[in-house]
Every structure is written in structure tokens, then in C-alpha cells.
């Protein structure tokens, strides 16, 4: 399992990936695995009224990864405004106590919510992923 940011030839980054880069419409041709990187908390919440199959309470954070890896050397690059960071959303690990600006790292979880309990068709998507744990 990896936590992949997707990159287009103009070095725009998104998580998750899209059919075409939302910034420039080019195809996203490259991925960067963020699962071994650390990120900064942009904001967080603890939701106490959670839907069927979701742990209660459910603490969530939006985090931002700095991407230091050298941009893909691409000859088709037409813009110079490539991204050097990318955001992701995810659950916080149990009892994690965070504030805006704290550093966190991804921790793999096999099942983030019970796929049989909610309205979404189980087979239509993945249910594993990464929680964030304070460093």
C-alpha cells in the first residue's frame, strides 16, 4: 500500500489522482509515494456524530506534505508554477492530540470503516489507507 500523490508534466501535484490534471488538463503521468514522509496539520476536527460503520468519535485532519523530490525532468513542461506541496485528508490515530502546525506521519490501517455498514457499495472503492500519527 502506498499513499500516492499524482503529478503531471507541469509538476502540479494532487492527492488523490484525477483523469486529467485539474490545474492544466495534462495527463498525470507520475506518482510520488508519501507514506514514508511527514506532514504538517493544516486543520483538524473531532466528529462525535458519525455515520454507520465509522468509529465514534472520529478525529480527522487535513495535512500538507512538502515534496522535496526533484521535479520530473520533463521536456513538455510549459509552466513554471509547479507545486512543492500537496494536501491529504485522513483519520488521526486513536487518542492523537494535535494542533494546527504539528508534524504527523502516515500509519497504515487495513480497514478505516466498516464497508458493509454505510450506503456506499463495498466493491466500488478501497477501504484501507493511512491514518496520521503525531511525530
Amino acid at each position: 500500500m502506498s499513499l500516492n500523490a499524482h503529478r503531471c508534466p507541469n509538476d502540479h501535484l494532487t492527492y488523490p489522482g484525477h483523469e486529467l490534471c485539474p490545474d492544466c488538463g495534462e495527463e498525470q503521468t507520475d506518482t510520488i509515494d508519501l507514506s514514508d514522509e511527514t506532514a504538517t496539520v493544516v486543520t483538524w476536527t473531532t466528529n462525535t456524530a458519525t455515520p454507520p460503520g465509522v468509529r465514534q468519535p472520529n478525529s480527522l485532519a487535513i495535512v500538507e506534505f512538502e515534496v522535496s523530490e526533484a521535479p520530473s525532468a520533463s521536456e513538455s513542461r510549459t509552466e513554471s508554477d509547479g507545486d512543492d506541496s500537496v494536501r491529504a485528508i485522513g483519520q488521526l490515530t486513536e487518542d492523537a492530540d494535535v494542533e494546527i502546525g504539528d508534524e504527523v506521519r502516515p500509519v497504515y490501517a487495513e480497514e478505516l470503516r466498516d464497508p458493509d455498514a454505510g450506503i456506499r457499495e463495498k466493491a466500488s472503492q478501497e477501504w484501507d489507507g493511512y491514518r496520521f500519527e503525531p511525530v
Partner: protein
Amino acid sequence: MDRVAIVGASMTAFGERDAWLRELLAQAGRECLADADAAPTDVEHLYVSNMASGEFEGQTGVPNALAHDLGAMPAYTQRVDQTSASGGAGVYAAWQSVASGASDLTLLVGGEKMTHRTTTEATDVIASLTHPVEYKHGVTLPSFAGLTARRYLHEYDAPRESLAKVAVKNHKNGLDNPHAQFRKAVDLETVMESPIVADPLRLYDFCPITDGSAALLLCPESLADEYAPDDNYTVVSGVAGATDTHVVHERDDPTVMGGAVESSEEAYEMADREPEDVDVAELHDMFTILEFLQSEAVGFFDQGEGWKAVEEGVTDRDGELPINTSGGLKSKGHPLGASGVAQIYELHQQLLGEAGDRQVDCEVGLACNVGGFGNCVTTTIVEEP
């Protein structure tokens, strides 16, 4: 160009209703036709704004059902789903149908039946609009509100109480709305001490789940006199819609509601109006934080300043720019597909001088209807003829 007039409007009581969706839609549709003294058979286009009747009650195909129940055959029918902004999107579709010349009389009915489900089940139905990477983490619309509210308070040094004051204001307005789900005043302390739902937001920062329906009847302004004599109609002078990212965390600035910025700019341009011209507004306060974000995005206040307007009473009913005189989604309730239609119902009543105890002095009204967490937004400007 012939402008598009609203010649009839209605809404049912919002709240916990025994009626199911078909009956709610029929009630609002019938009352709307009666308001304009129009015959069902005169309706050429019939639009139904609804997010999730299949998911909520296993009833699909509601526009056709409504046409039959009202005797509006052979009107062309269509369902409009734009999640929580289905109502606003329906206003846009109804406007298009008349403005294009395709229909000389268009009935728009928005509605949703939700309260037979538990709050968490209803929350899950709504959360099904999220991206798989959001849904698998149990992300809900209320959690987006908590995440965004924390960031807003942090960035603009706004006090937590300013959000609570939105709830206090809108509940106070709802006291005078006979259709509102909650006709109950709440004080600051009650809001601030209510249970946490999505930290830092509490129970009273959220709208309830609601059953209800609202309707509008639209025609070319040149025919308005037939249904609404003595200029007893209003005009849709500007209407537009826009989308923002589906994945909410991909927005450059989480405190900027891009869809509201884009759709309002276009609506102002069409109406040849500026934010300063607006006398009364209905904003989509599904969560208190959303009233700040939209009041800034549609240009009423600078970015990060919306909270100050609430603190200073600018948006009170007797303030310079009354916002959510109806009580908003917060107190009136939020039957998803009905809400955007009910916003225009309120503006229509205000502009006709028929808002009773809620009446404010106004000539131009604006409504902003938000789907997802700003994922898709419509802005509508309504005026006196």
C-alpha cells in the same frame, strides 16, 4: 430580451412531516399554482429539485409522479439533482427553460423527505457525495464544517462566539416564520454549551434534518400580468452556477468558497448589479461557518471580515444588510432539494412586501445555494419589476 418573472410561490411547513415526498411536492405545487391562479394544464415545463428520493425512501421518477398528481400532463418533466444545491440549480434550470423560449410557464418544485431516517443515516446519505478517499475515512459534511471553522478562526483571529451569534440571529429570525422547523430563540450560552458535533462546532452550529417542499412558478415577464396582476411579481435578474473541487482538501484556500465567488460574479454581471445593491440575502447556513464564507465570497464583506458583520449586527433583521430573514437553513430547516427554492420564496415574499413580521425594506435580494461543501453553488438575484 424578455425577462423571467416569478408569478407564484409557496412552501409547505418544514419539519418532521408525516407526508412522504410525493405528497409534499404535490402540496407545494398545488399551492403555488393557486397563488398565481394558474391551471395545471397550462404548465409547459415541470422541474423537481431533489437530491436523494431513491436513497431516502425508494421512490424514483418523482417529476413524472408529480405531473400526474397535479394533472399537469403533458408537461415536460425533469429532475434536478445538485445535492444540497438542487433547489438553486432548479431555479437556474427553470429560468433557462423560460429565457430560452422553450416554456411559457414553468413550475419548479423542490422537496426532500428525510426525518424517517436517523440523523446518522441521513448524514451518510449526504456524505455519499464525497470522494472515495474522503468517504473511507468517515468524512461527513459536518466534519468539513469543523475542519474549515477551525482554520477560519485560526487565520482571521475570529472568536468562537461569532459563529454562535449566527445561530442566535437566525433562530431569532425563525421565530417569525410560520413555516420554520424551529420557532425557538436560543441564547449565546445555549449555543456555546451545546454538545460538540465536529470540534470546534457544536450542535447549534448545525441545521437539522427536515421534511418539506417549496415551489415557484415562472413565465416571461410579458405574460406576468396574466398570473400576477398589478405588478405583483418579481424578476430573476441574475442567475448563475459554478463548481469547485470535488475533493475539498485540494482547494488552495479552504476558507474561500470558489463556487460562490464565481457564480455571484456572473449573477451580478447579468443583473448589472454590485454587492452594494443587495438589500436582503438568503445564504446557505447549513453550518454557521458557511454564512461567513458565503457573505465574503459573494462580496458583501472582505475575506476574513464576515464574522465582524455578525458581531456588529450588520446582518441582523434591522441591520444594514439582513441575512437569512427566513431563519435560514439553521432554524427553518434543510430539506435538501427544497432549500434553494425556499430561499427564493423568502426573497419573493420580502420583495412583494408580504413577509409579515419578518418584513425588511428591500428592492434587490440575493440567494446563494451550496451543494456539498461548496462543491457546486448557484447564486440568484431577484428584484422588484
